[in-house]
């Protein structure tokens, strides 16, 4: 909402500077800033009267003017085609500076002396009108200062209004707040009207409200004998200051009164209102209607229309119709001032995608009583600017009378909410200053009647807020409260996430973060078959882009899609993933995912770092598991479609699947333009939280020495390291303390399809010193068992 300070000064002469007004309003909750400051502009610019105009001897498009500026008559070369003798104009005299900084000097233009400049509105930055010089009304004294004569040295404030304060969407609305805080009385604008003594508005029109639930009140006033013309400068200037483009006097008046009072008005060309009949009704299903911006809409009974005897002529409270709008030839108008149901206007505006100054105000609530004032103000201005005559009275259909709300405020409640005690007298003073009427009081509570324009005040707490605003938040003393003791603190889930973040960072990974969205093509790029859980996507109805149409079922698409173009990535993300469980429900899980590129950190000066493989990821998995307290973690074959079939695994601890890892398939890499191998892993942190590792118990440290033996066996290549290790433990019995692989060899010496695996074994008896022979016995049993179970032979 833009506010002209000069205009405001007319409604409430506080004498305050724009800066002070901005501070006062901001402190009341109406955040205000100065957006245009013209104080000090237009110096050296005066009213001039063009005495004569002759053509320039050396240029076709220029003319030589003699201009009376009071104390002198100046020779001015002018290039505007519309300049003419007898006009009253604005002259920038020598020494003046235009708003864009151009200095006016005495100079020769094509050989002719020019002692100033006759200005256009655009040169004065008063409009974007380039049509020629600006002309003012006759009768102004030449030589008078332009800046003093008009409100042009204005300051414009922008008030950032919260949606509850529809009542402040006008000059008067803001003035009311200023009146309440400064005590300066409001001066309401003139509505005096010399009505026709014979003809009445009701002779010309007739109003029928068929939907009083959506339109409790509709009034119409008729004005005849009007002439459409350009509005006077003062009005065009004020409209421009508050951001409204001037059209003609009839339209401008309705916009002007809208900005002044906040009440939307609409002027119909009465010639186009068939039968002078106004019917306020719900639209027919499928009814077509063209609004005055030329757009055609298909309506439904959800939309309220203003119709005449034959057809709709306006979308109630939203926009008028092309068929009945005011034109340059209009001489007779019906001025509508009505009250429409806020929700209904909002539904129509949203449903049809039409936003207007009118719908913006109606959906925030307008003043069902104040609309009479707005209508009279507009009629008065229209008659004074457009000639013509207002017919006597108005047609006022008010089938559903809206009563003023009565609300009670208790002094004790003010203190309970604000923590400061406010005297009853002060409470009453604040509320009556806001035009609320005192109904009754018993000394501890006060009942007031709330004016119609305050849509936001229905309950006691709303009054408490009003009191608080005017008392000032700075009057409340800050006190730290006692915080109730809680036993929960951080949830288990949060503690796990926090521990993992710290762990993954400390082992050299970077924490990343991606958007929560994916598209169907991400799912396809991950080669996800039909019926796969990733296909159970929760769809977004109104996505911002075609890449963000669904909620992510996994963190992997987001991580992989960020790899393109990076040389090395070691990143993890902890975030929520989604799965639709029914058309109206979905599941959310916390996940942790890691992505490693094949390229490792290049920072080695003694040779390039070796390329990474899946064992790097497995190392991360093992360290994560260990950090989470799982002593035993297993990796089992899996079949995720986006991984190499034989280079992937599910990760289990305590028999529960906690995650999976693998090497991304080349098709997926290609689809994301990744030109190196990629290893990813994803853990289900909800599963981790639900399956905590067993509690750690301190293990006794043994003081007896152990015996170490190396064992190298040759087996078929298909025999896994895990099965060998398990067999060693099984056959070695309780003395086997540790089994570690230290070498794997594949090659000609041991035969095709075979591999040699070398283990370092540690034997230990926790209760006494182990005899060498016992270790040898165990070793023999292991060799024998491996041979039997897995076909292993000693190398």
């Amino acid at each position, binding site marked *: 909402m833009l506010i002209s300070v000069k205009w405001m000064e007319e409604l409430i002469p506080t004498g305050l500077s724009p800066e002070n007004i901005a501070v006062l309003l901001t402190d009341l909750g109406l955040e205000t800033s100065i957006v245009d400051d013209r104080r000090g502009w237009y110096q050296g610019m005066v009213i001039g009267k063009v005495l004569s105009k002759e053509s320039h001897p050396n240029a076709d498009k220029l003319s030589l003017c003699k201009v009376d500026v009071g104390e002198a008559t100046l020779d001015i070369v002018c290039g505007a085609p519309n300049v003419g003798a007898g006009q009253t104009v604005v002259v920038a005299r020598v020494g003046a500076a235009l708003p864009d900084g151009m200095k006016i000097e005495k100079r020769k233009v094509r050989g002719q002396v020019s002692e100033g400049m006759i200005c256009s509105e655009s040169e004065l930055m008063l409009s974007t009108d380039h049509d020629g010089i600006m002309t003012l009304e006759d009768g102004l004294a030449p030589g008078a200062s332009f800046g003093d004569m008009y409100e042009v040295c204005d300051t414009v404030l922008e008030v950032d209004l919260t949606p509850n304060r529809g009542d402040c969407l006008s000059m008067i609305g803001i003035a009311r707040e200023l009146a309440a805080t400064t005590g300066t009385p409001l001066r309401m604008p003139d509505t005096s009207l010399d009505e026709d003594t014979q003809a009445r508005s009701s002779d010309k029109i007739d109003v029928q409200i068929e939907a009083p639930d959506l339109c409790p009140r509709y009034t119409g006033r008729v004005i005849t004998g009007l002439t459409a013309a350009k509005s006077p400068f003062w009005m065009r200037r004020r409209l421009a200051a508050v951001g409204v483009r001037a059209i003609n006097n009839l339209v401008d008046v309705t916009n002007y009164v809208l900005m002044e009072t906040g009440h939307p008005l609409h002027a119909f060309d009465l010639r186009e209102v068939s039968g002078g009949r106004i019917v306020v009704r719900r639209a027919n299903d499928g009814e077509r209607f063209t609004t005055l911006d030329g757009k055609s809409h298909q309506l439904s009974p959800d939309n309220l229309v203003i119709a005449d005897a034959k057809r709709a002529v306006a979308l109630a409270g939203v926009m008028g119709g092309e068929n009945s709008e005011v034109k340059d030839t209009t001489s007779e108008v019906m001025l509508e001032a009505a009250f429409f149901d806020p929700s209904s206007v909002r539904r129509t505006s949203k449903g049809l995608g039409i936003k207007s100054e009118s719908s913006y105000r109606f959906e925030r609530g307008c003043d069902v009583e104040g609309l009479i004032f707005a209508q009279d103000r507009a009629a008065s201005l229209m008659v004074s600017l457009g000639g013509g005559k207002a017919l006597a009275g108005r047609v006022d259909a008010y089938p559903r009378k809206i009563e003023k709300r009565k609300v009670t405020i208790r002094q004790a409640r003010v203190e309970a909410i604000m923590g400061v005690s406010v005297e009853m007298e002060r409470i009453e003073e604040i509320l009556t200053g806001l035009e609320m009427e005192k109904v009754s009081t018993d000394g501890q509570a006060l009942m007031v009647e709330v004016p119609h324009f305050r849509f936001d005040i229905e309950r006691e707490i709303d009054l408490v807020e009003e009191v608080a605003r005017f008392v000032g938040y700075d009057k409340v003393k800050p006190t730290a409260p006692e*915080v109730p003791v809680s036993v929960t603190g951080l949830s288990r889930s949060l503690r796990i996430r926090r521990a993992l*973040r710290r762990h993954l960072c400390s082992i050299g990974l970077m924490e990343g973060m991606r958007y929560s969205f994916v598209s169907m093509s991400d799912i396809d790029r991950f080669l996800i078959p039909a019926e796969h859980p990733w296909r159970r996507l929760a769809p977004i109805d109104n996505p911002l882009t075609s890449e963000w149409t669904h909620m992510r079922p996994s963190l992997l698409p987001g991580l992989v899609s960020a790899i393109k173009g990076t040389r090395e990535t070691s990143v993890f993300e902890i975030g929520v993933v989604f799965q639709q469980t029914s058309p109206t429900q979905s599941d959310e899980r916390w996940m942790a995912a890691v992505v490693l590129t094949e390229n490792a950190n290049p920072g080695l000066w003694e040779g390039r770092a070796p390329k990474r493989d899946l064992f790097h990821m497995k190392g991360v998995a093992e360290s994560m598991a260990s950090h989470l307290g799982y002593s035993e973690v297993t990796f089992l074959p899996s079949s995720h479609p986006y991984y190499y079939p034989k280079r992937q695994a599910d990760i289990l601890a305590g028999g529960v699947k906690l995650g999976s890892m693998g090497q991304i398939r080349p098709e997926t890499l290609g689809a994301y333009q990744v030109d190196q191998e990629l290893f990813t892993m994803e853990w289900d942190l909800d599963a981790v939280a639900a399956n905590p590792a067993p509690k750690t118990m301190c293990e006794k440290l043994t003081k007896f020495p152990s015996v170490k033996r190396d064992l190298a066996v040759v087996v078929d290549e298909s025999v896994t390291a895990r099965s060998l290790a398990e067999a060693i433990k099984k056959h070695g019995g309780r003395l086997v303390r540790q089994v570690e692989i230290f070498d794997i060899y594949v090659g000609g010496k041991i035969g095709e399809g075979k591999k040699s695996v070398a283990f370092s074994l540690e034997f230990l008896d926790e209760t006494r010193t182990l005899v060498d022979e016992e270790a040898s016995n165990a070793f023999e049993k292991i060799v024998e068992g491996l041979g039997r179970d897995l076909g292993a032979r000693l190398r």
Partner: protein
Amino acid sequence: MPDDLEKLKAAFLARIASADSLPELEQARVELLGKKSEITGLLKGLGKLSPQERPEAGKVINDLRMVVESALEEKTTSISRRETLAKLEKETFDITLPGRPAGKGAFHPIGLVMEELLDIFTGLGYMVEEGPEIETEERNFGKLNFPDDHPARDMQDTFWVQNGARLLRTHTSPVQVHAMEKYKPPFAVIAPGRVFRCDSDVTHSPVFHQLEGFHVDKGINFGHLKGSLELFIHRLYGMDTKVRFRPSFFPFTEPSAEMDISCVMCGGKGCRLCKGTGWMEILGAGMIDPNVLEAGGIDSEEWTGFAFGFGIERIAMLKYGIDDIRLLFENDPRFLGQFR
């Protein structure tokens, strides 16, 4: 004899001092304490003394011997220390070469700020609650006192999901509703989380993070709101940071407030960052609207509460001088590697 002995001792010690390497020192030891040394000679001469003189003279000679021995030992230590040092000095190392990487991990700025904030509030005694990211319209709007078909709903551009059945929560305030369903007052809760708005540019991301806090108890008033938030800001930005509260509007609080803090860049003098005002808008707050308490099954006459909420991205961007919010979500390793 004592006189001679003092001279002898001085001569011996001078001999030890003059040795400058371990072999030289060994030579000195042989000379001074060996079989042919003067001390050995003196000891041998003891036999010629009378039994009365012998103990006295023996003690004097032994004392001399011990002085010599300890002087030799001291000198040995000092020479070998010097020689070791000389050897170590030859072992050089170019400290300007890069180290072998040992896990240069880094946190995400949002994660860092979030953890710092959670630590502050849990330190004050708040408990942490979280809610789902896909919410019902009822919890995101209805129970938070956003009327149907009211322009207040335009304050937050909403992503709808599953054909309007649900929405992506536009703020963390629905956690208030969850907490009221779950707990009976009194409670003080902090609720971190990801939120969504249908908006995207340099300062607006469709995905961002908020921290919501609320405290419901008997006798909670606006002064407590001010006191709690002032304490929080002082912990986050230091005691010198000033705060101010201005009236504002949120459907779920009344009276509502915006809290400004003195500009973190210029300290309140006015700069580009604060547009010359000296203040920065940092958070919205207010007394929980009675309708919200009642919708949560809490008697609003008996209990009152305050709530506040703010964006984590803004705090992180101010803290680290990040000028484009999208950087936070692009996973560029050059960006991610900077924050610890």
